[in-house]
């Protein structure tokens, strides 16, 4: 099993619904976020190119955060999802520093927090909160090991990229371009 997510940058309008859905579903403390929108405008007016991306933890296959964690609090769970056990986390900050995507943040309660791909929902057969609310349906989530899953199919037919491939972390967040 290999869970992954794909975001269609051609469909995303940057409405931040995914951000709010995540904050509500996961009780993210006020002022923090587990996912966020990035907008990049390139070119010279009037010839501009816009890319919207909904970003979060990349649930890397070779995660520097799991490697750097001194207590094993950061670990791989079902489907390669990277999770943190709060009762094992000492809050040393090594994982936060090790993430090239800066996807982690220190929770006000002391432990480190980040996106979980909503594993609690996925186990119940639901989609992650961000995916389920997207008004443009630009997000795909599923198991890459199942050839017929929605995400496997969309990655087969659409051109896509990953962020900072040169960091060598094998991220599992794909952006359709």
């Amino acid at each position, binding site marked *: 099993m290999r869970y992954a997510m794909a975001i269609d940058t051609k469909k995303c309008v940057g409405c931040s619904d995914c951000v709010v859905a995540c904050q509500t579903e996961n009780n993210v403390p006020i002022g923090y976020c587990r996912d966020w929108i990035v907008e990049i405008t390139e070119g010279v007016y009037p010839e501009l190119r816009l890319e919207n991306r909904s970003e979060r933890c990349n649930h890397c296959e070779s995660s520097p955060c799991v490697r750097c964690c001194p207590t094993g609090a950061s670990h791989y769970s079902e489907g390669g999802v990277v999770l943190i056990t709060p009762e094992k986390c000492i809050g040393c900050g090594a994982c936060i520093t*090790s993430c090239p995507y800066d996807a982690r943040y220190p929770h006000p309660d002391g432990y480190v927090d980040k996106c979980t791909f909503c594993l609690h929902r996925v186990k119940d057969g639901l989609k992650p909160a961000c995916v389920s609310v997207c008004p443009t349906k630009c997000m795909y989530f599923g198991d890459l090991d199942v050839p017929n899953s929605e995400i496997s199919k969309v990655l087969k037919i659409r051109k896509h990229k990953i962020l900072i491939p040169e960091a060598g972390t094998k991220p599992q967040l794909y952006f359709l371009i």
Partner: protein
Amino acid sequence: MKEEIFSSGRMNPMIDPTLHIWHWHIPVYLFLGGLAAGILFFAALYHILGKENEYKTAVKIAPFLVPFILVIGLGALFLDLSHKIYFWRLYTTIRFESPMSWGAWILMFITPLSIIWCAFHIRELMPKWDWKFKLVIRLEEFLRSYKTLLAWFMLVAAVILGVYTGILFSAFNARPLWNTSILGPLFLASGLSAGAAVIFLMSRSHKEKLLFAKIDLIVIGIELFLIVHLFMGLLASTQVQIDAAMLFLGGPYTASFWIFVVILGMLIPAILEILELRGAKIPALIPAFLVLLGSLMFRFIFTYAGQFSSWTY
């Protein structure tokens, strides 16, 4: 001209706009760890070489500082943790891939070792010292019969501790400035230089002072050589590492790095030590203080600049 506007909705405290998760605790802890490693290294080395009585400060006196230095350092590390009540989790796991785990375990090993080392020499400071309990006296006698073996352990552990203070940083590929393995030897050299400076400062014997001035001079030479290589390596690497090097070559950390670390922390003490070796009377406090200041500033600047450097995408 091609323009690019990047805007992100993310504003997590201590992560955005630039990472600032490690404050003063980490550089203080790394400085004290490096200093302790330096002192213990020379204590073990000159015991193994059989020069205990010739270089008494190095082997017998200076190590008394080490337990205090380590405890203060560990205190700083503890303050840095944001989930403090779970700190003991460090000692229920051994994770070979995690430098932080290596550090916690090596400190667990070297702190008692340094206390045992002090126990061997307590009568140098307090001639009337009495252990009072038979068990402790026996234990001390037993350990003393293995003193040279313990010295070897201490030598190796001191090197690991010194290198670890740098490896802690270089293991993070997310921070291009740190992601160079030369930081291991560089931080070790900086720790040895700080250790030599403390022994130089404390010593009352002229012969010992001259030896440690010489050692410090050599180590400073090695440090300068490693710094040149650090920048050569970064500048010959990928764009993000070139950008990281530029932080010190025209960027925001240029003045503080070259003034405090290189000029005040290395070049001036080196000149003063050369003068000392040529027979001039230089108050020991000046070069020793400058070396220690440079060593501390080096860690501060690297901790802050490293967090400032990142991948952009």
